[in-house]
């Protein structure tokens, strides 16, 4: 598939699962999604968000964000995200990292919920009417515990080093990418390259492979995580993220940044 074709799989009002900045963010798909223009998206950050979330929010495509945090790391706060919150233009469902993982795990197991320790007494819980607290049925009485409902995103989107011709994707030890795919109805993946050998053909590569069974579409996008890095492939381009952070302080600056660098060209320029 090509990037544009994959982006068209995303329809207005869908919930998208997106990975943490170091796990393999498909920045290539960010621009394709903005070009495609499907809005009212609900973002589900696994377990935190960054540049991708900020750009989708800045482009006006986002209705809500469920996340444990959103930031640009060393480059500071996420400017478009933070302004949208201050102006009440998006709904934020604040979570905590293991609650995000618990929601995905519930979906992976076909369960309606997953228990999780901690959280009680946190204001996170107070603002999450969709979470429940029950008394642990295995205790003598009392012992409240939080239940997190299953998270079943419509589409999981991430970037990985390699895929094979059978549709298998190598995710290495970034097992949260598999968790996203198990939980989601569709999974769209960009990769650095397609390899000829079957990734399930030997035990060594199979150990880090997400089987094609869970993969709905694959597109080749060299340096597709840029300016984020990709583990084992290339480092984060911190200067570029700082350049973005500075530009995106205003809506105009954001618009200028996004207009100046169409997808592909930025990637080429970065090589």
């Amino acid at each position: 598939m090509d990037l544009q074709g994959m982006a068209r799989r995303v329809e207005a009002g869908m919930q998208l699962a997106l990975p943490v900045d170091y796990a393999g963010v498909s920045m290539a798909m960010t621009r394709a999604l903005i070009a495609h223009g499907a809005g009212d998206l609900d973002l589900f950050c696994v377990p935190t968000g960054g540049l991708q979330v900020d750009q989708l929010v800045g482009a006006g495509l986002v209705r809500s964000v469920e996340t444990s945090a959103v930031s640009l790391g060393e480059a500071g706060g996420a400017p478009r995200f933070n302004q949208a919150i201050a102006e009440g233009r998006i709904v934020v469902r604040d979570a905590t990292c293991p609650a995000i993982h618990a929601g995905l795990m519930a979906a992976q197991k076909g369960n309606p919920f997953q228990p999780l320790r901690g959280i009680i007494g946190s204001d996170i819980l107070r603002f999450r009417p969709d979470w429940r607290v029950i008394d642990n049925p295995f205790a003598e009485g009392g012992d409240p515990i939080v239940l997190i409902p299953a998270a079943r995103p419509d589409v999981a989107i991430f970037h990985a080093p390699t895929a094979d011709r059978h549709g298998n994707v190598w995710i290495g030890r970034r097992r949260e990418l598999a968790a996203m795919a198990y939980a989601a109805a569709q999974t769209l993946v960009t990769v650095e390259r397609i390899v000829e050998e079957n990734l399930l053909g030997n035990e060594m590569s199979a150990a880090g492979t997400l089987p094609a069974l869970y993969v709905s579409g694959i597109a080749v996008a060299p340096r597709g995580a840029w300016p984020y890095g990709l583990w084992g492939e290339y480092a984060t381009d911190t200067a570029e993220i700082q350049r973005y952070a500075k530009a995106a302080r205003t809506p105009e600056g954001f618009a200028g940044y996004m207009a100046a660098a169409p997808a592909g060209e930025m990637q080429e320029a970065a090589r």
Partner: protein
Amino acid sequence: MTDIHPREILITTIARLLDGVRHVAVGASSPIPAAGAMLLRALKQRAGAPPVRISILGSVEHNFFTNGSAELFDCAGQGRIDAFFLGGGQIDGHGNINLVGIGDYPASAPRWPGSFGSAYLYFVVPRVILFREEHSPRVLVETVDFTSAPGVSEPGIHRTGGPVALLTGKALFRFDKARPGFTLESLHPGHALAEVRDATGFSFDHAGQPPQTALPDRATLELLRGQVMDELAETYPEFASQMRREIHA
């Protein structure tokens, strides 16, 4: 050897607070906690004591996890992480921390990144060290605007972890969960009780003449400036070279 750098006192203090742990996890952008953990590891190694394991989130060299970003939390839930560091835009006198923002949630302004794993790790890591270099009434408040994670829990709430200490650029506090509240344990060199009281938005217990925070001895300082800075530079090159410049300035 030059004067002791203020951050060397923080690093040494962290190593002391961590004494006895088998496994400490450190957040992604936390060079001072990481240096403290590395100093403890080097001290134990030199003494022939059981090894200290350090997991640095987001690091490649110090990533001992192979099950995705959920593994840190699983590992903590299994009781395999003895110590962790938390900060916060606000920390209050009950040990509550706020990583979300100022003002009326959800329309926080400023909005900070968010709670990350604090609402879980604060409950299940036995020795959580609150660390924030900035010591001001803006950070150390009477009551947080948003509780990302509470300092203490009601009886009957499953909780195997929580805060043991608060370390800032000015002082070290111990946390007493029975009261609950902080007790000033020591003042860093160059800081006075009155100054710390003015800079702290919550009330705290203290001795009439609080002691000075212990300084590293010569051998510890050598270890810190040699082996530990070399190790730290692998993960935090900019921080390490900045510290080296300041020490040798």
